[in-house]
């Protein structure tokens, strides 16, 4: 069984625990063993904490990477923000001995060391590359006929120069993953437009962030989509929390929840009561 160190992050366990639960359940069904990383902190968030202090960001990220390194497993995360931070921190430290040495001076203060070996993976990419569409199709017990707007977010695929997962301007892997459930992914305008929440924009300029979300919602509505499927708890939070103000009510599901529905999970285990926009099964 393929094994991974499961990095929880903040928004999933502390705002939408259904994302965490459904990830655990569907992983088991798909033959992925997720081992919790004990004692991890926030990744830390790439658009806020990194923007305040790159040094603090890198040191705290290195601690998380070192915890997974001790387990001898690659990190898997269901959040674009965590993926962005941990992937970029690993890329920086795993390829630069001087930076690694400097970080280890800080980690030594808490009796830790990072050797620079941890690999960082996004759960959606693991599903696509390690499990594969055929095996996913075979695990679906309740095929869905949903009309879906897929939402990749930004830090899943970009910067593509180091992530090399899919074409960031015209991606397909999330669409393929969604369609494996029987659902249809509908084409729409500006499919790769940011949700607006990242980079500290939601916290400092919430109305500007909403303007991004509004354009996305207009394009999704025009496409005929009845569900939004994301791969990031922060995009999920943005779409779920601001739709009411903007006069929309398109249910928002993380890919793990969509798979949970297609594998027969209950509304309780999917954590749907935490959603602002009601999701009816």
């Amino acid at each position: 069984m393929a094994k991974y160190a499961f990095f929880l992050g903040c928004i999933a366990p502390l705002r939408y625990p259904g994302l965490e639960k459904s990830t655990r359940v569907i992983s088991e069904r798909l033959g992925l063993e997720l081992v919790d990383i004990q004692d991890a902190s926030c990744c830390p968030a790439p658009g806020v904490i990194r923007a305040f202090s790159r040094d603090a960001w890198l040191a705290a990220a290195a601690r998380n990477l070192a915890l997974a390194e001790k387990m001898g497993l690659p990190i898997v995360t269901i959040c674009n923000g965590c993926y962005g931070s941990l992937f970029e921190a690993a890329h920086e430290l795993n390829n630069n001995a001087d930076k690694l040495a400097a970080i280890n001076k800080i980690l030594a203060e808490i009796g830790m060391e990072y050797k620079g070996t941890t690999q960082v993976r996004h759960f959606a990419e693991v599903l696509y590359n390690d499990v594969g569409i055929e095996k996913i199709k075979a695990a679906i017990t309740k095929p869905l006929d949903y009309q879906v707007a897929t939402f990749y977010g930004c830090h899943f695929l970009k910067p593509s120069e180091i992530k090399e997962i899919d074409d960031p301007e015209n991606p397909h892997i999330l669409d393929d993953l969604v369609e494996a459930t029987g659902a249809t992914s509908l084409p729409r305008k500006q499919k790769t437009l940011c949700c607006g929440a990242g980079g500290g924009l939601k916290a400092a300029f919430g109305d500007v962030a909403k303007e991004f979300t509004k354009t996305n919602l207009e394009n999704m509505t025009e496409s005929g989509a009845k569900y939004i499927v994301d791969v990031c708890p922060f995009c999920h939070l943005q779409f779920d929390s601001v739709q009411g103000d903007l006069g929309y009510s398109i249910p928002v599901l993380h890919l793990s929840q969509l798979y949970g529905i297609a594998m027969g999970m209950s509304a309780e285990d999917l954590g749907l009561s935490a959603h602002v926009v009601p999701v009816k099964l």
Partner: protein
Amino acid sequence: MNITEIKPNPEFEAEIVAAGGEDVKMCFQCGTCTASCPSGRRTSYRVRKLMRMAQLGLKDQIVNSEELWECSTCYTCVERCPRSVPIVDVVIALRNIAVAEGHIYDNHKKTAASFYKTGHTVGINDKIKALRSSMGLPEIPPTVLSNKKAMEDVDKILKATGFNKIVE
């Protein structure tokens, strides 16, 4: 017409590099970034202008500007830049320089304080605890929230890098 004299400050580039931003000098002002920027469609943020200001070393204007904080770090400009300028890294470096001089929004300070105090950028509440339990998940996730020693470790790391100065 008023003409403002600009005094370039070439030393500023070294400051940007030290804060983790490199290659800002590679920008040749084509404007692909501004044309691609979703924030620029909705705000007065202009990526090309910010890169030029950084090249010229207009530090005071940059650290005092609202626009510096209007980038959502979506990386569209980075993907399309024909000179491979790591624009987001430059923006992050400029923000680090601004924060070090005390320029930080209240809500950002709150996020930083939450991370400093709890190891997470958002807090846990009773409703979420109950929901987690009802789903068969541990009431408190197995992160720093579950281990006082781990939280002390994070605290030490943040103090060692001066993060405490941002929130205090």
